[in-house]
């Protein structure tokens, strides 16, 4: 079969494009090398919906950021994605850099960002009491927000899948070329895929695929960012996303609440060659601890429950590379998608699918369904509603993850829904089971048991995150 569109990568960009394409009568398939959606760059980022003031004026990045920010509210409502427009602050620690703060403001105005204000220290402290002593002024951007990056990615993919888009997991695109008839051949570890168009949403590997088909080479550097996540008990430490004045390495270290009530500190910025090197380093953690102290004082770093690192797909020109590649008709790039990529994904989806719709002359699907429901959150229910739920589905009465109060019912939902969870991390990203302060110490054996039962797999084949990430090696008193 020849697909109309094959998308390489089921991260937030690929999934956003897939969801937008699912509006049209077309055969669309997403190839993902991981065992789940959201298993590369999209799983380790700040979860920030940026206002869009710091992108270069007139850039694709600025356009996508501002448009993505506009679209996020409705998208979050349609797909049941936790999203809060809490506003952001960019802090200035140096009276001599007030010009830079003003320049940021001016750029924001030119980018069409609404509601920007520069606040002096006293005004800023009123809305953000724990700002560091050295902060002299801030720029307040009320349109910035925070979103659950996992749910955003998963919901986009689920919705695409509901509307007919196929997903192929554990399927790694290895090479591609275009034949004389203009059909693209994509070789994978799971056979060849034929398609009229290709969307390159391969994250840190987008340059590899681009460079296979185009003479105009691009180069993407994996820029590692280390993060620390703090326990919910200190969730009220910060109210806005607090940035520092941007540098050439990005937006600096941020301190922000997360949409689930934790505090996130990060990311650092280290350019590295290895596109898989998501290891945190001691230097990285030290660096972020030191730098974060410039924006906020007495950050409760003793409450760190986990640290992790993500890779940004930094393109040399620090610009989103979108659209059909000039010397490779039918090949569409979504490359260089680093921050504000998460914010921009709804806009990138809209833009890229629009180009493909026009090129292929795609027609609207009549029975397209644009909404999804997240895994039910019983904690949002009244006691009466919750008891009604437990009467119908007793599994909602058994708490499996005690730190986050996640019931068996929610875990079963996460496994049984379209593109459901197949691993501990898959369950974690859909339900938060294992994401709390004990970091799955108590619940992982119980989640493994549920996965085993639901998937009909032996315990030895249950994984943390697919591939070789098995959790137990054998029965006791047995040779491996």
């Amino acid at each position: 079969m020849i697909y109309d569109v094959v998308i390489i990568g089921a991260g937030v960009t690929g999934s956003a494009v897939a969801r937008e394409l699912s509006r049209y009568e077309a055969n669309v398939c997403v190839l993902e090398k991981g065992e789940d959606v959201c298993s590369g760059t999209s799983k380790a980022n700040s979860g920030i919906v940026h206002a869009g003031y710091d992108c270069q004026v007139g850039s694709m990045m600025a356009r996508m950021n501002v448009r993505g920010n506009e679209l996020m509210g409705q998208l979050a409502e349609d797909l049941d994605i936790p999203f809060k427009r809490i506003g952001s602050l960019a802090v200035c620690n140096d009276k001599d850099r007030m010009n830079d703060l003003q320049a940021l403001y001016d750029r924001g105005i030119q980018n069409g960002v609404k509601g920007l204000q520069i606040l002096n220290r006293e005004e800023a402290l009123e809305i953000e009491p724990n700002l560091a002593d050295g902060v002299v002024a801030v720029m307040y951007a009320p349109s910035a927000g925070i979103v659950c990056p996992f749910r955003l990615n998963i919901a986009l993919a689920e919705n695409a899948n509901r509307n007919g888009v196929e997903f192929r997991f554990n399927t790694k695109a290895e090479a591609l070329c275009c034949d004389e008839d203009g059909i693209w051949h994509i070789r994978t570890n799971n056979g060849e895929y034929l398609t009229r168009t290709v969307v390159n949403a391969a994250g840190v590997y987008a340059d590899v695929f681009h460079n296979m088909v185009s003479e105009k080479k691009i180069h993407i550097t994996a820029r590692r960012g280390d993060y620390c996540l703090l326990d919910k008990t200190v969730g009220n430490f910060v109210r806005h996303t607090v940035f520092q004045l941007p540098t050439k390495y990005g937006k600096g270290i941020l301190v922000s609440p997360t949409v689930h009530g934790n505090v996130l500190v990060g990311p650092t910025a280290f350019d590295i060659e290895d596109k898989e090197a998501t290891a945190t380093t001691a230097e990285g953690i030290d660096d972020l601890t030191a730098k974060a102290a410039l924006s906020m004082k007495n950050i409760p770093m003793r409450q760190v429950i986990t640290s992790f690192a993500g890779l940004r797909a930094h393109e040399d020109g620090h610009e989103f590379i979108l659209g059909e590649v000039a010397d490779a008709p039918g090949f569409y790039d979504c490359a260089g998608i680093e921050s504000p990529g998460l914010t921009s994904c709804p806009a990138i989806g809209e833009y890229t699918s629009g180009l493909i719709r026009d090129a292929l002359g795609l027609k609207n699907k009549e029975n397209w369904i644009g909404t999804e429901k997240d895994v039910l959150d019983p904690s949002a229910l009244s006691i009466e509603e919750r008891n009604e739920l437990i009467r119908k589905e007793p599994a909602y009465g058994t708490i499996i993850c005690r730190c986050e109060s996640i019931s068996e019912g929610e875990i079963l939902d996460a496994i049984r829904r379209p593109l459901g969870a197949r691993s501990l991390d898959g369950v974690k990203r859909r339900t938060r089971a294992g994401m709390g302060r004990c970091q799955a110490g108590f619940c992982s054996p119980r989640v493994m048991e549920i996965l085993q039962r639901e998937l009909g797999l032996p315990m030895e084949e249950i994984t943390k995150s697919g591939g070789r990430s098995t959790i137990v090696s054998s029965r006791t008193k047995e040779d491996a």
Partner: protein
Amino acid sequence: MMADTVHTAETTAREYDIVIVGGGPAGLAAAAAAKRAGNDSILILERDHELGGILNQCIHNGFGLHTFKEELTGPEYAWRFIQQVYDLGIEYKLNTMVMDISEDRVVTAMNREDGMFQIRAKAVILAMGCRERPRGALNIPGYRPAGIFSAGTAQRLVNMEGYMPGKEVVILGSGDIGLIMARRMTLEGAKVKVVAELMPYSGGLKRNIVQCLDDFGIPLKLSHTVVDIEGKEHITAVTIAEVGPDRRPVPGTEERYTCDTLLLSCGLIPENELSKAAGVELSPVTSGPVVNESLETSIPGVFACGNVLHVHDLVDYVSEEAARAGENAVKYIQGLGEAQNEGAADPAAEARRITLIAKQGVRYTVPSTIDPEKMDDLLTVRFRVGDVYKDSYVSVYFDDERVSHMKKRIIAPGEMEQVILQKSKLTGAGIRNITIMIEKE
């Protein structure tokens, strides 16, 4: 051997004198003691599918030497108390998670059969135990692959589920569970290559180092930590390095160990999220509630015992402490009938109150305050030290007067210490502070 269904006389009953949160060793002992002290309205809420708590996965022996003068396994020790609960006809609910405790002692809990329900209690005994410090909180650099477990999680997998995490093991931290698991994994055929401990002393009991490491030739490297974790999907190796006095790795001392399993035994944290939400004052040192001589927290009628109060080494002491909490809860309820509002707001009690001060090597004391009128004839004050002290003295001062000066050959953070105070010496003596400290001479 244990019932697996909800066992209550009347599930619609929504008022109890005493609700005990947790059916592990602390909760069981508290329940039995409260019942024996004459209270018939007791309910234990247990989140797991059987009573006994963490003891059920501690299949090694060495439990009960103090209480029963014999060596029991964890499940055997638990069973002695579970039997008491059965025999005394104490009600309990299994698979039941307490979701909230309010300041006025309304306990909200949930299970499959009852749904979400609330119980108004006259007294609440906190007995939720503790959890292990996870990898994330240790900020170990490197990848985050499969094959990294807290020692207790591995213990559950091996001893209760019957699965091996792996065959080549490195252990970070020398807490007791880590030491026990070093032996357990070895007996199950795994190779335990090394135990690395950040501190210059072990966090576990001396007897566990001897019986679980030395007897099996497993090296313990003090002042060492993990500085790198390799393996993108599954752990393949770790690098450990020596640390200096500042506990930072010393360059050039790195040693790489291939392994498929990393166990962490780096400290236990009392699980006080419910207590905190209820408004119970917590100690920043123990992470457990601040309690008085009756093991009562800052909220009158809310008591705490066991590892939720402070982490213990020996379950015998948990049982003893918990029994006192149970008895005191009964006394508290009896007091409610006799005199209204006695306790925290009583000015005479305020005037009598003695504050315990931990200093000079002593990290904390449990309890933190004593009302001599309410204390037992003998009161055990438990504490831990922050460093290893050799040939030193544990001194007790009543205000400025040193009243006790006990020589100890060795005092270590891994072993809980105690002093015993006599009611007769404190009553009416007008003492404001009792200070416990370590002195060289």
